[in-house]
């Protein structure tokens, strides 16, 4: 039992230690932005990092923890972005309720795609989710109400605090979910579906649950990104974006939340530094990707979590784990 509970964020102490680290980080970055030490261009990179953390951690729940290979995550972000944009820009709703409705709409989309397709496995599921993302894009391109292919402008509603706390909440919720009974059921489904079913786990239920939660947070990220960059167009949510999120997850390690955060930060920085040479950026990016897959297919962190005790913060887990 102690062995099982060894994951980071499991113990109460470690949980509050992480929250503390999160708040300190917020204060530091917030001050740096306020004082202009992080200039507005760098601030945009920080915003993108927060968004990528949300997207990567939520996709990791589906791909890494539940073992369902989804490559249409940007499709859910598109649902969130467009629903929230229509609510605030066309129906004059305040931002927060729009954000909630957008997240729920994305979750419903996750449910709708999840229930029929989760009987499929591996490559087939991957290609179905890819198809789903493409269909969303085609629909948005043909919908003149939201500007079609030209896109639409949205109010700017968010700031660093919004993005940072959304990312923090996402991480906390998904980390807690993963370490709950439900999360262990999801991991069991990943390890062996048939065996999990034999142990009495309702495989379909957990697949759909993970899918919907993942989609919900992707919707949040979509809504936030729309109101951060105040312009959305269908092509911003295509296959390449889905793939980018997947790369972050795999780079960080499938099944590691801290890995996803690390992956999001690293990859956003790489992308930002290569920004001036967009074509070389993609070539270098794809080469890095292939090399990582060949030499370290489990990603930077594997399925391990980075623990605060590793850098001397917080007590060691095993001292605290006794019941």
């Amino acid at each position, binding site marked *: 039992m102690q062995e099982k509970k060894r994951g980071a964020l499991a113990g109460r102490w470690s949980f509050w230690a992480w929250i503390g680290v999160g708040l300190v980080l917020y204060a530091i970055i917030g001050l740096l932005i306020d004082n202009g030490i992080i200039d507005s261009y760098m601030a945009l990179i920080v915003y993108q990092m927060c968004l990528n953390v949300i997207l990567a951690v939520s996709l990791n729940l589906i*791909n890494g923890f539940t073992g369902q*290979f989804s490559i249409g995550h940007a499709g859910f972000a598109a649902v969130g972005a467009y629903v929230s944009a229509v609510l605030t820009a066309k129906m004059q709703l305040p931002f927060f309720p729009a954000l909630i409705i957008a997240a729920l709409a994305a979750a419903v989309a996750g449910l709708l795609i999840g229930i*029929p*397709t989760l*009987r*499929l496995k*591996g*490559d*087939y599921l*991957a*290609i*179905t989710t*890819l*198809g*789903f993302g*493409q*269909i969303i894009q*085609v*629909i948005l*391109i*043909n919908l003149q109400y939201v500007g079609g292919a030209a896109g639409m402008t949205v109010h700017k509603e968010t700031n660093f605090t919004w993005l940072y706390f959304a990312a923090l909440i996402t991480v906390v919720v998904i980390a807690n979910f993963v370490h709950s009974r439900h999360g262990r059921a999801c991991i069991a489904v990943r390890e062996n579906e*048939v*065996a999990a079913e034999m142990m009495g786990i309702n495989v379909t239920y957990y697949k759909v649950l993970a899918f919907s939660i993942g989609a919900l947070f992707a919707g949040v990220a979509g809504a936030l990104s729309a109101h951060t960059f105040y312009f959305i167009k269908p092509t911003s949510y295509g*296959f390449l974006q889905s*793939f980018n999120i*997947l*790369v972050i997850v*795999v780079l960080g390690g*499938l099944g590691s939340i801290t890995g996803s955060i690390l992956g999001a930060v690293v990859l956003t920085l790489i992308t930002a530094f290569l920004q001036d040479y967009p*074509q*070389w950026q*993609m*070539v270098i*990016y*794809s*080469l890095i*990707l*292939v090399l990582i*897959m*060949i030499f370290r*297919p489990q990603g930077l962190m594997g399925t391990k979590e980075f623990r605060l005790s590793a850098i001397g913060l917080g007590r060691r887990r095993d001292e605290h784990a006794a019941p």
Partner: protein
Amino acid sequence: MTTFIQQLVNGLSVGSIYALIALGYTMVYGIIKLINFAHGDVFMVGAFVAYFSYTVLHLGFLGSLIVSMAACAVLGVVIERFAYRPLRKSTRIAALITAIGVSLFLENAGIIAVGAQARGYPSMLPSRSINVGGVTISVQQIGIIVLSVVLMVILQYIVHRTKMGKAMRAVAYDAEAAQLMGIDVDRTISFTFAIGSALAAAAGVIYGAYYSAIDPLMGIMPGLKAFIAAVLGGIGIIPGAMVGGLVLGMIETLVQSLGFSLWRDAVAFALLILILLIKPEGLFGKHAREKV
């Protein structure tokens, strides 16, 4: 009625392009269980090689076609050797991501090499057309269909009548057992990639000739659609890919002729999802129970 036959002919031309690409997908999937996402980009490279052979080297239609097929066969083998072979023992996700990585690499290396803008493709075949009872058939369409049929017949011959084809079927059935029987598995897989890529190159050439424009990102959509075609027919089954490609081409042309051309891609993907839900093993596939 004539309109219908006209659309049938158009669908047949588009469908044979999909079928040729789908063959490569299906053979690679059949043998190493990998969705080779880079296949659509090999198709793009094939179109460009033929473009330069035709306009710069003046090799003529057949010459350009053969040069392009040979170049892509080599490209396919190289991709397999350096990107996929090291991953043969690792997870499917790692292999799939590598495939997407290779695909992005080819696309962006292509953009750097030849620029992102589309180029007009030379009309390699005479642009005459013949009229049969109100149905207009261009020489290009006839060329496309004849070429596809010839290539498919050659493929069938290789797979069913040659030693290498027998080895391919054996490896696809059970790679380990094939190895025990003295088959060089690595060589057989390389050969599969070579054939599949050569067929994709041929598809690229006729795609360029048919739509008269090519660009480095042209492989993405036909690649995905050909994959749909392969799934439609039952992935891993060679006749399935041919039929799947033709059916998809027909359906697309039909959707287009009904005036919904903007929704064409969505229909293709919706079709894919529908097939996967109703008959995931495809039209020609047999259902195999998973053993524990």
